[in-house]
């Protein structure tokens, strides 16, 4: 018998599988999501902040040389140019404004690659809210520059050393912090995962990506694209882009999951391609687990995709056939970083490069026809990845 979530469901996925101690705060947030977020006052403040502090709208950039390599017409949605260097800032601005409306005086967040942590630290500094960030100790090593940026903004960064010491453990500890501090603290969840209302709330705050991209397509290209592509860890940048085209049936959705060392190796984070439905961090969704239901560790060269579950709406989009998900291995993603950097002078985050790699092989894989127009979400810039990228630079002797 299948288990159907009752609160905030996306078909058979989602729900609010959270301990009773968080129920009150989640119900309060769900109410705020319904009442406050759509209100004209909130939307005015949110859009003004996105524009004047965040730097929106971000451009839609045509990339002819990269397009020639992909045998497609590729346009990049430039979330790497958003303040902070990734799409995470959209969500964080919205949640910080919401936290203030709810009378919260402190922000807590998890982070993987550090982009969400940086965005939260920046928003906390701007809005006078103290920030505590939980980050896996392993991620703190590989994303050291982002740790420094968080600290410069005045955030407290707490290393998480349990388990694989990556994003999953950081979310566990952020949830534990929040359970004890709900009265005055807002948990700024960074992706479309977690218990209701987070998946829908974060989607609605990231929907600006898709809204802008759709209008830019019509204005700059004169037509809708054949496909929208994005990388998927938790999946917020992908949902943000997809949501703009969800009623345009002719626009196909492709998500690039972290294939790590390959699905067969068992060292990957390709939840939708190789996982099964289960309950993790408050939602029913595809996840990596053993037959007993113990969560398996994920692996990816991209810290921001290194997560053994995925947002429940992606599970729904997969099962309904609306979106297709493919695994992209570490090597292919790293190669795509070099390809874009050298062909277009744009340094993408390794996370985003998973989508670029999928784009480069889409024609050969039969996903798209030669010459099709594609929008790829360039969700973040690669400055944070310099140590990893330099160590993997082709032709460099170490």
């Amino acid at each position, binding site marked *: 018998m299948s288990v159907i979530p009752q609160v905030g469901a996306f078909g058979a996925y989602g729900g609010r599988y959270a301990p*009773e*101690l968080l*129920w009150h705060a989640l119900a309060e947030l769900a109410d705020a999501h319904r009442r406050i977020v759509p209100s004209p006052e909130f939307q005015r403040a949110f859009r003004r902040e996105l524009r004047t502090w965040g730097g929106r709208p971000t451009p839609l950039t045509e990339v002819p040389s990269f397009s020639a390599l992909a045998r497609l017409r590729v346009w990049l949605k430039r979330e790497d140019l958003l303040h902070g260097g990734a799409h995470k800032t959209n969500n964080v601005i919205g949640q910080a404004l919401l936290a203030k409306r709810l009378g919260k005086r402190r922000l807590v967040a998890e982070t993987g690659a550090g982009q969400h942590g940086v965005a939260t630290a920046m928003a906390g500094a701007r809005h006078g809210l103290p920030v505590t960030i939980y980050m896996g100790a392993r991620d703190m090593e590989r994303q050291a520059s982002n740790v420094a940026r968080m600290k410069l903004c005045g955030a407290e960064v707490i290393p998480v050393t349990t388990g694989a010491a990556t994003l999953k453990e950081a979310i566990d500890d952020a949830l534990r912090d929040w359970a004890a501090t709900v009265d005055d603290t807002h948990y700024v969840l960074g992706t479309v995962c977690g218990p209701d209302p987070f998946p829908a709330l974060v989607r609605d705050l990231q929907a600006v990506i898709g809204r802008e991209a759709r209008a830019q397509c019509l204005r700059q290209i004169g037509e809708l694209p054949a496909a929208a592509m994005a990388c998927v860890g938790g999946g917020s940048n992908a949902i943000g882009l997809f949501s703009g085209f969800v009623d345009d049936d002719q626009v196909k959705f492709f998500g690039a999951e972290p294939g790590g060392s390959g699905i067969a190796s068992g060292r990957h984070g390709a939840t939708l391609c190789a996982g099964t439905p289960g309950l993790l961090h408050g939602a029913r969704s595809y996840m990596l687990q053993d037959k*007993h*239901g113990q969560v398996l560790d994920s692996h990816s060269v991209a810290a921001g995709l290194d997560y053994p579950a995925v947002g429940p709406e992606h599970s729904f989009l997969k099962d309904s056939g609306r979106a297709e998900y493919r695994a992209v291995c570490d090597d292919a993603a790293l190669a795509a970083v070099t390809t874009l950097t050298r062909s277009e002078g744009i340094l993408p985050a390794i996370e985003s490069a998973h989508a670029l790699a999928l784009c480069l092989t889409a024609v050969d894989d039969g996903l798209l026809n030669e010459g099709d127009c594609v929008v790829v979400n360039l969700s973040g810039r690669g400055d944070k990845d310099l140590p990893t990228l330099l160590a993997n630079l082709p032709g460099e002797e170490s």
Partner: protein
Amino acid sequence: MSLARLHEVLCQSRQHVSPFLMLGDPTPDVCVALCRELVAAGASMLELGLPYADPSADGPVVQAAGMRARKAGVSTDEALQTLARVRAACPDTPCNLLVYGNLVHARGYARFCADAVAAGASSLLVPDIPLEEGAVLRRICREHGLGNVLLAGPRTPNKRLAAIAAESDAFVYLAGHQGITGANANMAECRAALVARVRRYIDVPMCVGFGLSSPQHIQEVHGAGAEVAVVGSHLLRVLSHALQEHPGDLAHLLAAVRTAFQQLLPAFRQPKEIPSCS
């Protein structure tokens, strides 16, 4: 059968102290010996957890206990086998099983409940399947004669407490403070007031846990109207210390945990403090 025994035990006395242990921690054999020891020392109920990799409602001490058990190779099957051995060793002692939702989900609700009852569980607490998401699971539990235990917390509104009590056919588990298990908050006054408030809104037996670590805590919880006080992190800390300080010394381990437990019992009277001669 087990649920009936739980009801019987809850009727016999209004002052139970229930240890919480992790099934298979540090090994299945030692876990069974610990349960036997604690029942002999006066535990009239047991709460036993299934080791899980991501126990989001638990503090570091319970997390570490789960990790020890998992290192010893204890998965759901071994944990349920251990439970069956505990029940064989302590046939009159009801066992409340604490399990995170994904372990129940992965096995399938029906199969999990059947297996838990077969192993001797009297009731089931799944901390991350709350009231609204648990209707199907609760129905299956009832079909199998497995009691439902639902969590309540300090922020649970009064009306919701009544709804939670109505679905808890075993007892309500009240978290004595807002947060995770084992936090060492000294919230004596708040806790007693909380227990007394919750008592007014629920008409089923009540168990209180989270951060109880002294005979005063236990007395206060009982005094405010709870039938059961659960002690987890406090005992697990003693267990962990004994494992580190005297590795391999089973007799020492059992004695240390038994002593820590006995010191909490209502019957145990702390020696009166001698006033200092200032």
